């Protein structure tokens, strides 16, 4: 546990089952206990299907745990009003999720619009956010999503998640599906952004280097189970078991 920082998110013995095609159940997340401190960036890492997305979606109640509880700022999310909880939690989905029928400006400003901001402050906020993710507003505000490159779309997705200045941001492979150079650029920008806006971030990736570069701490999942939580150094110096050691070896090859 990190010093005296209050806990932003806590998973308490969380298990999530999905119905399996054979009629039984699969545990996508199995008995995970994990805490994320206020202001911390936690990277969730693991192979495909290890339960990263599922774990993330339980934070903003897109999934309900089968067992155990998820707490945000000390309170079980089940007791939160789902809409309020989500508006206070930025969410960048794996596939980007920009609304294809809305301009960049409207995508980014949609939540402000729904929160009844007046047009001027909405516009100002959108420009500020676009500038923050390195998209010149004059050039990009009026574009439609299909007029953007993959990297630009991801940036808009990040800007949209930050619109209401949420204290907690969930990012599901925000830099996935991009070429390595763009990825590296975005990663650097993110690090820069992280320094500027102090937020709690839970970031899913299956890129170990990315996790090491961005995470204050890293949580490694495998088949729904938490194999190790710790800093980059912990992982390098003290892998918890053979599996972790093998995972590191493979992903740094």
């Amino acid at each position, binding site marked *: 546990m990190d010093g005296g920082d209050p806990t932003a998110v806590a998973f308490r013995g969380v298990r999530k089952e999905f119905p399996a095609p054979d009629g039984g159940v699969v545990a996508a997340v199995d008995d995970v206990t994990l805490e994320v401190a206020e202001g911390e960036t936690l990277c969730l890492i693991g192979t495909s299907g290890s339960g990263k997305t599922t774990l993330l979606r339980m934070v*903003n109640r897109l999934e309900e745990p089968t067992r155990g509880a998820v707490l945000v700022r000390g309170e079980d999310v089940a007791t939160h009003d*789902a809409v309020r909880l989500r508006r206070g939690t930025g*969410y960048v*989905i794996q596939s980007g*999720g920009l*609304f294809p*029928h809305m301009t960049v400006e409207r995508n980014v400003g949609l939540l402000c619009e729904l929160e009844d901001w007046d047009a001027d402050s909405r516009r100002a906020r959108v420009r500020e956010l676009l500038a923050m993710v390195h998209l010149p507003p004059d050039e990009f505000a009026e574009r439609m999503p299909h007029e953007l490159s993959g990297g630009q779309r991801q940036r808009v997705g990040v800007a949209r*998640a930050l619109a209401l200045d949420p204290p907690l941001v969930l990012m599901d492979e925000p830099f996935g599906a991009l070429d390595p150079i763009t990825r590296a650029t975005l990663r650097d920008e993110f690090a820069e952004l992280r320094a500027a806006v102090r937020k709690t971030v839970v970031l899913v990736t299956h890129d170990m280097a990315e996790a090491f570069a961005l995470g204050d701490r890293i949580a490694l999942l495998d088949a729904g189970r938490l194999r190790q939580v710790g800093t980059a150094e912990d992982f390098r110096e003290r892998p918890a078991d053979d599996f972790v050691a093998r995972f590191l070896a493979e992903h740094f090859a």
Partner: protein
Amino acid sequence: MSTTRHRALVLAGAVLAGLGGAREVGAALPAPQDPAPPARTAATERRPIVVGSKNFAENRILAHVMGQLIEARTDHEVVVEDGLGGTLVVFGALRSGDIDVYPEYTGTGWAIVLKEPEAAADPLRTYVHVAREYARRFDVRWLPPFGFSNSYALAVRGPVAEELGLARVSDLAAVSERLRAGVSHEFLAREDGWPGVSAAYGLEIADLRGMEHGLAFEALAAGEIDLVDAWTTDGKLLRYDLTVLEDDRGFWPPYHAAPIVRGDLLLRAPEVEDVLGELALRLPDARMQALNHAVEVDGRAFADVAREFLIEEGLLDPSDAPADDGFRAGERRGDLLTFVAGRLGITGELVLEHLLLTLVSVLSAVVAAVPLGVLLARRRRLAGPVLQVAGVIQTIPGLALLAFMIPVLGLGLDAAYAALFLYALLPILRNTYTGLVEVDRDLVDAAVGMGLTPRQVLRHVELPLAARTIMAGVRTAAVITIGVATLAAFIGAGGLGEPIVTGLQLDDTRLVLAGALPAALLAVLTDLALGRAERRLATPSRGAPGA
């Protein structure tokens, strides 16, 4: 009030005052004696006067009687278009100006056209009421009645009537148990048939059978049954030894026939009113029976029977040339261009009627189907069965669906709206459902994850993304509805189907085209316009929403 009009009412009163006793009153009143032929007026209009009729013998004979008389007494060319169809088709043709005059029945005008809620009873009141309402609402004038009333009746075998002393329906009550009756299936089922009349007169006939009408008369002649249902002017009544019982309690509404005329015809050919006025009271029940008999039983031509009648009545000079080719149904004069030009105004009106019919039906279908489609997309287990039901409705042929509506909503606009609404439902419903189900789940997920309420997700994400598919459904629905709406004319709802229906009856291709071409054009234009709207929806819009 013109003197002619005044005379018409007096005559009408005289005829109708005696409880359906047109026969007696008609016989008692001296028919106008050999009126001097009115001075021939110069035909100021080239357009012929078109006399129409419904599709049964009596009405067609009357059309020929009127047509020949007008032809003989005026300078106008006359075209007889007999057998156009049911009441609403013929009335529709009159209103649209396809025909200028046809024979109508007071009870029919009362119940079918004016849709009066209570049954017509008093003959005079009925006539005066329909005459006033037609003039006020449709600018259609009722001229003096012919004299007979064609309504349901009960008839008893002559010897039986004599033996039991039966003259009125109420006489039956005492002896009804001893009689054997054979009535038409329709009469057995209709509220104004056996169920109604037996209740009104307290009749209890143990041996009561439904049978085909023609057979019933044969069975009666063979002495196997004693009582049949009939029409008061049925030609067959003459052929058999029958006593028609008087409807002494006035159970059946009066169905007095009279010429009805477009108001504008009386402006361009005012003499028609006097000419047709001469037919007043010339046709009591028995006389009409005889003419019907000549056509239905003896198989004689309508025009010949009409001509003989007019000559007998001294209304037509026997030396006058018989009806020329102008009387052959379906032969309109003038070339196609004049025909088209002459119909521009009417066609415009029909197009508007048609558009209104389509618009109201499709819009109400949108209002019903879009929310229902949203519900189905939310509760997908319901989707299968509901879409199946909508699909079944879609497979019902247009005419059948219209027919199903009639018992529920009656004839006319309401039934047409309901049927067209049902047709428009499926394409919109199916496309709304499909459009919503096909919205990328990730986008819905992103919206929910951002903190949009279900309603906001629907409004800002799902509906806009499904809009194109929904619009395609509306487009399909509109095109289908424009097509099916042409059938609405069959039940009197108007629109471009009117000339089609009339044209089919008349075997007049030009008239069919006068409805079919604008309808097809309308469908194509609608398809194009809505197709454009659809493509506009497909291109993501930059327009920010109203704050």
